[in-house]
């Protein structure tokens, strides 16, 4: 009788152990019917302008890793002729309740010259993210999401690509390399394909949006997010321009912290 009890206790422990180990896995569940384009779609195009003084590019100090080569200037604010690059624009709300097909082609995030290329990218849930190390040094890729599962994996010099997926929509996920503290990328995960990143001329295009009214958001890593309402009519392109003011820096939220304690 005692033996049986012990067996039960043992099984319980094992179950708890397995429960802990499996508890953090998550699965993506599609909601609603699969969305199909009807042919009435239009595109949203726009240009991101930049006003105010353009911050001088700072020279990054990469001296702690001699294998980091190439141009080493901070590239978070890239402005050319008053147009801002690397702004992520996406449809925030207004889409029909439908599941969007998961693309099978992958999105590449390269590590080159101890920088992430591209610095800002969008990806759909379940779409493979292919991470490549083109450097001769070691990196680690450490996205710090709030909704998705966090991971942190090193990618050594000469190591092949890492393929990862994100299961839940989340804008934005900062990505860092702890070894090269200046390395920074942002990944936006969306359940739909209606997003774009502004190019060197500040232009973007969101393709194939069904007719309707939407809220779209433009996000920049230093200047925060701006939203706009747009209306897409049948087979017509809509326009949405944004302007970021360089004199208003983005302030992160306040920190709830208790005072640090000094111990002898």
């Amino acid at each position, binding site marked *: 009788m005692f033996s049986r009890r012990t067996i039960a206790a043992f099984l319980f422990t094992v179950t708890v152990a397995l429960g802990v180990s499996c508890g953090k896995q998550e699965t993506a569940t599609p909601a609603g019917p699969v969305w199909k384009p009807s042919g009435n779609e239009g595109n949203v195009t726009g240009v991101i302008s930049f006003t105010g003084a353009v911050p001088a590019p*700072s*020279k990054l100090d990469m001296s*702690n890793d001699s294998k980091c080569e190439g141009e080493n200037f901070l590239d978070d604010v890239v402005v050319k002729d008053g147009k801002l690059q690397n702004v992520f624009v996406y449809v925030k709300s207004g889409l029909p309740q439908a599941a969007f097909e998961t693309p099978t082609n992958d999105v590449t995030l390269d590590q080159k010259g101890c920088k992430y290329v591209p610095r800002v990218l969008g990806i759909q849930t379940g779409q493979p993210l292919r991470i490549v190390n083109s450097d001769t040094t*070691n990196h680690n890729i450490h996205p710090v999401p709030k909704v998705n599962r966090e991971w942190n994996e090193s990618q050594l010099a000469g190591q092949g690509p890492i393929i990862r997926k994100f299961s839940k929509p989340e804008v934005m996920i900062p990505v860092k390399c*702890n*070894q090269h503290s200046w390395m920074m990328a942002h990944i936006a995960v969306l359940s739909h394909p209606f997003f774009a990143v502004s190019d060197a001329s500040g232009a973007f295009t969101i393709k194939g949006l069904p007719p309707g009214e939407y809220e779209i958001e433009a996000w920049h890593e230093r200047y925060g997010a701006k939203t706009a309402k747009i209306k897409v009519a049948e087979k017509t392109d809509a326009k949405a321009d944004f302007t970021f003011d360089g004199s208003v820096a983005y302030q992160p939220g306040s920190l709830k*912290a208790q005072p*640090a304690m*000094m111990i002898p």
Partner: protein
Amino acid sequence: MKICELKLVIHSPLPTPHSPPPLPTLMSRLLAIAIWLTAIVTAGLFAWSKWRLPESVAAHSAMIDHQFKITLAVIGVGFLLAHAALGYVVWRYRAKDGERASPSQGNARVEFILAGCVAVVFIALAITGQRVWARLRLNQAPPGAVQIEAVAQQFVWNFRYPGPDGKFGRTDPRLYRDADNSIGARPGPLGLDPNDPLGKDDIVTPTLVAPANRPISLSLLSKDVIHDFYVPALRMKQDAVPGMKINIHFTATREGRYEIACAELCGQFHHQMRAYLDVKSPRDYEEWLKKNGKQ
């Protein structure tokens, strides 16, 4: 007597062919030689100067190296004596047919004397060792020492200089911005408050630049986990603990570039957490300060 023999018969019904084992002489000789050889080779390897810390560039390291030599000598003598004795008894006291061991149960006096000697030697070592430590760590940095702050994070070192005003500006964890680690960056990786006038002239660099032959007072801090400021050439090691500010001080005596390592496990790239200690002549140091300050 007969009862004993009877019991023996009862308790060991089968013959015991395994004791005494064969070849006691060979085994005893081999083992004794092995023990002696091991001891000599080990002591020799410890004494051989092929593997040593990088040459010292700190004012205090002569003291440490001296204490290390004394300690090595003491433990070397103890080690060799113990192994000499072990080899000797193994060589000498092997089993022989028909002979019995000495029935000695111990000798309290010998034991007391030996324990006393050991205690005296050990405590003497402890006390001399304390003197070295006390001179290094129980006093403040001399006035006029160069103030530098070292802030560790996974897996990078940041160093901050107070600038001409001699005062560090305010920092805030909310302002940390690793993405821009250029020298003039505000807030930069240390989260310097751009509105604090004291911080305007602070210099933050990933390399520890220090003038030669001047005492340097270093405050160790950490942003995330425990790190350890370890400079082999300085014979110096101290944890950087988050939530604490730990002050150490040293004087580097020779110009040059020395490696700073992390000696406390801090994550997957612990083994790559390197920075440099750049010891410059006082003039070069002043020039460097001028060049990098006030941008």
